[in-house]
């Protein structure tokens, strides 16, 4: 533990002023700081626990654990967060992007393509077998919302240059070919990008605000919030697959190909 001691000097020359103040107002509390020290406590199991606080949160904890451990779907495969072997795509990236897109299209069918997160934004693996509410919370712990931006053909190119330069990101609705982190060809739903056309692009409010250094979106005023959280979109997709008796799955389908 570090502590320190010192004296403060800045009252020294206040003597006459202080006297004046005391006599004229007569109401100063009359204390002066002379010394301070400091300590920091690490809080661990040796600290001991206040049982009244535990009692206060236990009902919340019990309800939360019941909710979080609920199985809402089943996955055929492990989708790993680690993507270095498979970049520019990953099983988790493709699953995440497609799931969010499918749910968002129920609200707004006009969306052309999407980049709902960066790969760094995918926090943990999605396991094989039981998928719980907790798994989805851990995958997407933030309260980010789905937002749809209107981009020009030129702005779409700039965005996809970023995807190429960063060796792939979770995308959906695109077919990209990249070489040496440069974009070689790009198609939106099988069509060449038309510079004269505007595109409706899904992302999160976080990415849209320039989060994770994603360019383009933050300068664009034309945006629409769908009132759908990214996590709720994922949750909705998993529940729907389960209701249809389908297993969750993903594949490296060549949406981003490295030449």
């Amino acid at each position, binding site marked *: 533990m570090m502590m*320190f001691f010192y*004296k403060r*000097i800045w009252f020294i020359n206040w003597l006459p002023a202080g006297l004046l103040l005391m006599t004229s107002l007569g109401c100063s509390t009359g204390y002066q700081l002379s010394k301070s020290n400091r300590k920091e406590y690490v809080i661990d199991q040796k600290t*001991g626990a206040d049982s009244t606080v535990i009692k206060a949160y236990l009902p919340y904890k019990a309800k939360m654990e019941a909710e979080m451990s609920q199985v809402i779907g089943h996955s055929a495969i492990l989708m790993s967060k680690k993507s270095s072997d498979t970049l520019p795509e990953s099983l988790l990236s493709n699953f995440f992007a497609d799931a969010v897109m499918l749910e968002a299209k129920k609200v707004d069918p006009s969306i052309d393509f999407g980049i709902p997160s960066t790969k760094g934004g995918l926090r943990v693996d999605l396991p094989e077998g039981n998928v719980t509410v907790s798994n989805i919370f851990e995958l997407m712990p933030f309260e980010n919302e789905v937002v749809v931006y209107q981009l020009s053909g030129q702005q779409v190119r700039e965005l996809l240059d970023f995807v190429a330069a960063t060796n792939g990101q979770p995308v959906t609705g695109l077919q990209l070919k990249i070489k040496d982190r440069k974009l070689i060809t790009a198609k939106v739903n099988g069509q060449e990008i038309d510079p004269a056309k505007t595109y409706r692009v899904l992302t999160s*409010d976080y990415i849209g605000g320039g989060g994770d250094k994603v360019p383009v979106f933050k300068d664009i005023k034309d945006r629409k919030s769908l009132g759908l959280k990214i996590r709720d979109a994922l949750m909705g997709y998993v529940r729907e697959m389960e209701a249809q008796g389908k297993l969750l799955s993903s594949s490296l389908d060549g949406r981003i190909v490295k030449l």
Partner: protein
Amino acid sequence: MDKCHKFKESRRNFIRQATGAALGFGISGATGFDARAALKDGGLVKLTILHTNDTHSRVEPFPMDGSKYQGLGGAARRAALIGRIRAEEQHVLLLDAGDIFQGTPYFNLYGGEVEMKLMTAMGYDAATMGNHDFDNGLEGFHKQLPHAGFPILCTNYDFSDTLMKGATLPYQVFRKGGMRIGVFGIGIELKGLVADVNFGATQYLDPLKTANKTADLLRNELDCDLVVCLSHLGYSYENKKVSDQVLAAGNRNIDLIIGGHTHTFMEVPEDVKNLAGGVTTINQAGFAGINLGRIDYYFEKKRRSHVKFAAPYLITNG
């Protein structure tokens, strides 16, 4: 005049308290501080400031999953520690520098209710707002205020045109052992950090100007013996963005900045020379309630016949 009466009463209390305090902590001569002389001159009184920042809904300790902070933190342990300190110390202020919300499913499921209730149970005296406290929008924060038995201090967020109007205070003056401790809150710019819809019509006021105006008011008009700023600006940045370091160097009347946002674990607090030539101390206690910060201030009755000299820092492993 009423104020003066209160002062006299508290002064009597002060003398009693100071006697116990001075005998209790036994300051050595090596610190250059003569407790007996201080006593003779009218005594001294100790104020203990305990602080957290960026607790991020960490109600329970980090799980034992091999992660860096496994097994650390936890509200029940923090409460036990605070309880022990309160039993030892007469004048304690417990403060938080924001980002109470977000980080565990407790927030996702209950929206901050648990965090506010536990902070109230621990006896927090005040907190300011961090950017993540806007994560469920102004509505989301406002909804949790009935669970917070302590004031939320925000000086540079103008909520006048929002439903948060009147829900926060710019500052609060706490009276402890006859001393007046002024505490105010300074927040970070929300634009770009928080989704627009989540802060709505909140006006962001210049942090440096607002902090100076408030600290000057607390010191000069409201006679505060100590001025504390709860800041969610962040400790330091490579660019020119306003940080605690910028605020420390650019203010006149802040004694202590309790920082947050950058989750900085500071080995020792940093003392910065401020515009008035005095010292503004910055301290931050990491995040997630892994640590509890503590700073003790000793106050002496103003001496009229002595000139005090500065003593250098003495940093020990105590």
